């Protein structure tokens, strides 16, 4: 199965987003590189608003992800509660 991936700028906001991704996608691999964090996973990877809000301790709009996003790979599904990536095989 192919891997989907997402890369975020390494900063204070992303740290919470990465924690949320790790919690909701225990199979994900987190790779730290200079100034960026790359997360890859086979199948489907989901970023949930609720989990991110819990980590950040404030309201968080899924579209705020754009501020720290560097790149992604996979088909995107986004609504008010989550963003997910997957490949059709």
């Amino acid at each position, binding site marked *: 199965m192919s891997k989907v991936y997402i890369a975020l700028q390494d900063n204070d906001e992303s740290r919470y987003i990465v924690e949320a991704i790790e919690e909701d996608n225990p199979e994900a691999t987190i790779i730290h590189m200079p100034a960026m964090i790359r997360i890859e996973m086979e199948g489907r990877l989901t970023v949930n608003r609720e989990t991110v809000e819990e980590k950040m301790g404030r309201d968080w709009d899924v579209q705020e992800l754009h501020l720290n*996003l*560097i790149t*992604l790979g996979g088909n995107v599904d986004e*609504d008010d509660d989550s963003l997910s990536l997957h*490949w059709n095989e």
Partner: protein
Amino acid sequence: MAKKLNIKDKYRLLTRDLDWEYSYEDRKEAFPFEEFEGIKITDWSKWEDPFRLTMDSYWKYQAEKEKKLYAIFDAFSQNNGHLNVSDPRYVNALKLFLTGVSPLEYQAYQGFAHVGRQFGGVGARVACQMQAIDELRHVQTQIHAMSHYNKFFDGFQDYSHMHDRVWYLSVPKSFFNDARAAGPFEFMVAIGFSFEYVLTNLLFVPFMSGAAHNGDMATVTFGFSAQSDEARHMTLGLEVIKFLLEQHEDNVPIVQKWIDKWFWRGSRLLTIVAMMMDYMLPNKVMSWKEAWEVYFEEAGGALFKDLARYGIKMPKYAETIEKEKEHISHQAWWTFYTHGHAAGFHTWIPTDEELDWLSEKYPDTFDKYYRPRWELAKEMEAKGERFYTKALPQLCTTCQIPMLFTEMDDPTLNSFRDTVHNGERYHFCSDGCKDIFEDEPEKYVQSWLPVHQIFQGNCGGPDVENVLSDFYRMNLGEDNMDMKGSPDEKRWKQWKGVA
């Protein structure tokens, strides 16, 4: 208080519902470029935009990105950030970026503004308009970021003039001219899909991480800020492909032909990035080959598996492309090293440590084919005979790159192809470039090939030096030649207080 709209409803109201029916004008006249490429669209309303970004949110998030970015530019400049880069050689990668890449952002803006007007579907139009504005932002932020370096280093002063004239810069310039001179759907497959989805990742992700690793806060910041828009562009590129393939089965062979063409054109263009990664970043993040494996082979492989259900195959020449990752960075840097008198940036022999790193990263090719050249160059330099070639290179008519590539099954043999069209012989670096020419010879016979133009007397002269100084506006003895002994190097030593 009124209930907040969810993003699906908001997207529908602020995008789809802004379109209108044509009651008294002919729709075909309103969208005159929509049919000539042979692409069949039966229902634009099937267009999906997974991010569902509306203009109000777009402005809000883009403004926030800009505020962050410019705060960092100010801090960088106020703190003399240029003194914190790992090594002054690094700055030469930025000269290549400003002269070769930033003007492409402007061309991308022009291209997306054009297709953002020409598509009949409102969802596609809005997404393309946002991308056009993004691309304009990218060129502006890059010029701002590099204006700081222009105060302290040579080679940044005339990037736009140079982009339009200099021999190696015709490679990126003609790539975008080719895409923009195509119809709107080919432009989207070329730039929106092939270039944005797979190839720009290689420039804006590992190279920018490399900029951070070399102490260049300004570049990594504009790079990642640009790339945050890129994630949206990639999604647009993928949606375009899926939409075209789902609209009509007759679109499949047309799209496949464009994919074959533009993945090959794009791989050729990225030769310059390969060289920047392997030779111009003093502190290394990953080799070109490793970056290629992650972003092209793994990510691109997953993408093409996904598209297989539409009957789309891996791009033609994928096998050649796979072999090239072992060679092209070395072949390109050697070419620039030997033409260093005609380049608008400095070149150099890699240090012994760097040569060892290349040997380690390219165990199958570097020691066998490329290291001996550098050992020879070192010997010649030690004798005071730093080598510069006297000849002008022959160029490929399609990609416009000098004929520097070898056969991939025999890296000691240069790769040459040719074809005759209307009694004239045209030369190519590869089967890929030859096939592209033969498919549309009327287009490529018009290529503005810098070396041909010099020989025809269209670039001043009579000597190469006159062309470089008067036509290209290079400051000879400052912008060009080896890093060793350059004014850049002297100033750096002064700043750092070393002899």
